[in-house]
């Protein structure tokens, strides 16, 4: 029998229609003393309105610099079960697919070596195993590795890449998000397990501009599938939508950011040369419209949470990149970009912050790219800018003024 804490406040959250995390904690608490104390501690936090966790300490497994978030409790005496309560991050399978076997395996290991509490999944994408002690870490990691699993990332390292369900179960995926994620994860194992960057580096891949993995908002490198061919239209299906009551003019034509769709009540026309590849018409007329090859990805860089310079969204670096296995071009780019960043970046400076500090030109030249209008919403505003030796050599204007 595990220790039972009174939890009047948390009990409130067992009520109500949405599945209750409190019920989950109680399930675990019933057979696991760590979970029991975790429950009691949380009740105290709810009562006192503060967290009782200490700053994370450095714990981990031999040869790895990350994958575990060390956690110690401020109230170890009252809640000895959570005195040490580290999180283990297990690198999820790309696309978040599982078999019941795999799930049961993870449960068995975790019941033996941890609190029995998990997160499926962490925001970055890892399987989160919540709460274990330092001496459990080696055996845990060993058993996972014997069964083909490995730790995820933490600290100033490559972080566990993640992706949307993509080609596995989505008709709109224009790149193989799962394969890209798997390949990149394998390629950068060393960077993922041994923090050697100025700060974290995250990669998220989605199959199309719908961005079902929030890649553009929370990945230093955002890989977003897109297409260059025309949008194929099945006029009959479009008419069906109209018949079923969709106001094509209002819901599709007027909302097209490229202003390139027309609907005469019978035929839908798209001027592909003005299409911004936003996916709205394709998604809302699902089944009737279809993007066509060439397929590839827009590569964006730099998104992150607010600290220190304010939240950013990733911005375009490659308007279009082909994405064929073994994905050499993107791998090379990641190496060049992270090497440059590692050389010039300050401690805890994300790559996007560094680019903003030194300027796009420094970055683009370092990775061997030229400026293109697709990188910007608009050109710069104020009339002073840097010139480098040679920028004006050979009177560049003569050629285009012809």
């Amino acid at each position: 029998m595990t220790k039972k804490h009174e939890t009047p406040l948390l009990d409130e959250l067992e009520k109500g229609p949405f599945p209750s995390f409190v019920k989950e904690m109680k399930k675990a608490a019933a057979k696991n003393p760590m979970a029991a104390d975790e429950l009691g501690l949380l009740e105290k936090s709810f009562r006192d309105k503060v967290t009782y966790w200490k700053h994370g300490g450095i714990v981990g497994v031999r040869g790895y610099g990350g994958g575990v978030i060390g956690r110690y409790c401020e109230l170890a005496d009252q809640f000895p079960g959570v005195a040490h309560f580290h999180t283990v991050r297990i690198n999820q399978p790309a696309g978040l697919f599982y078999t019941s076997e795999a799930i049961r395996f993870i449960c068995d290991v975790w019941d033996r070596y941890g609190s029995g509490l998990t997160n499926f999944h962490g925001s970055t994408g890892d399987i989160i195993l919540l709460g274990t002690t330092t001496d459990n870490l080696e055996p845990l990691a060993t058993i996972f590795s014997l069964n083909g699993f490995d730790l995820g990332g933490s600290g100033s390292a490559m972080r566990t890449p993640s992706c949307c369900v993509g080609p596995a179960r989505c008709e709109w995926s224009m790149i193989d998000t799962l394969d890209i994620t798997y390949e990149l994860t394998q390629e950068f194992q060393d960077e993922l397990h041994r923090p050697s960057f100025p700060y974290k580096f995250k990669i998220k891949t989605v199959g199309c501009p719908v961005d079902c993995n929030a890649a553009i908002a929370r990945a230093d490198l955002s890989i977003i599938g897109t297409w260059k061919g025309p949008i194929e239209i099945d006029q009959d299906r479009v008419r069906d939508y109209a018949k079923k009551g969709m106001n094509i003019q209002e819901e599709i034509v007027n909302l097209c950011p490229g202003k390139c769709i027309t609907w005469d009540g019978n035929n839908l026309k798209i001027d592909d040369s003005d299409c911004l590849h936003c996916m709205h018409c394709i998604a809302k007329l699902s089944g009737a419209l279809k993007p066509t090859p060439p397929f590839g990805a827009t590569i964006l860089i730099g998104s992150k949470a607010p600290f220190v310079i304010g939240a950013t969204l990733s911005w375009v670096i490659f308007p279009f990149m082909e994405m064929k296995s073994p994905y050499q071009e993107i791998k090379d780019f990641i190496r060049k970009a992270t090497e440059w960043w590692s050389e010039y970046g300050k401690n805890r400076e994300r790559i996007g912050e560094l680019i903003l500090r030194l300027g796009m030109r420094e970055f683009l030249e370092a990775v061997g790219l030229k400026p293109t209008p697709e990188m910007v919403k608009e050109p710069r505003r104020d009339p002073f800018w840097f010139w480098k030796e040679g920028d004006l050599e050979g009177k560049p204007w003569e050629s285009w003024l012809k």
Partner: protein
Amino acid sequence: MPYVIPEVVDVKQRKTDIGPPHYKNFLPPIIQKNYGDWKEHQILSPGLMVHIANSGDKIWTVRVASPRLLATDTLREIAEIADKYCDGYLRFTTRNNIEFLVSDESKVNPLIEELKARNFVLGGIGSRVSNVVHTQGWIHCHSAAVDASGLVKSLMDEFIDYFTTKETPNKVRFAVACCTNMCGAVHCSDIAFVGIHTKVPRIEHERFKDLCELPTTMAACPTAAIIPDPAKKSIKIKEEKCMYCGNCYSVCPALPIKDPENDGVAIVVGGKVGNLRTPPKFSKVVVAFLPNNPPRWPEVIKATKKIFDAYIAGAKKHERVGEWIERIGWEKFFAITGIPFTWQHIDDWTYAFETFRTTAQIKWVK
């Protein structure tokens, strides 16, 4: 493949840098066969959709809500259900829902029946509210100004009908972050919640020496409010420059900022990440502070309902919250919701100028 857990673990056997298992091991045969060759999908009900391949093959997806924090017993229950109806195949979504993948149409309804019988909540597919991207909160993080799971539960209990049945003009993405590190997607969500502080960190000069690095601590401050205090071998904080962001505490345990009375919750709205129609948008603050009131944060839920209801009532089909607000204008948003516009709404940081109204284009409200 069979998984083995040796009784006695020889840690020397551990392999390193093998990475995650290959995804193919977990894909149902139908998906393996039609991988990348899907034709279309149909949303049959809020908890059920079918994807149809060009080959004609179909895969049904039954989606149920998850609190994300799962006990192993619940995971085993899910596995057992998957065995019974899905040949053991299931997945999780990027918003933490559980998806049962059914290859045999005849098993779809029985599965749904059993899930209902076991009190699983089906829904979240289509133009409605889905699960909440959130973070650790008091359950596991030292930085949390507010709990995450509790707030999520309170929210979803309130908006449950919009997960299971009711439609919204477009998807509504909620997110919760327990501190301004904002693990998750709060900065780009339709309606999001973030735990904040409102008082300057306390400086424990004694501990600073041993635990903190001066340059790192100073560099962590977005407003350069931190200056050295050589005498004490510690730091000083220019109170008038401090925005209580807590980032200094992230790098220096000697600067505690948590405060039961003065910590609270801010609500930001109008963000999105998809590229449909309008480019991705940041969320903007609409409520700068509400009290931290566990277990159900009634003030936060009430305020959210005001915003949500105004959106439901006012938005056109396919408009996300941010798109709706941009169409009607922020002056109308504040007028309609009755939320007061305060000093905290006006930016005074790096991009402040870009947020000022540099036009005479104005709507007159009331």
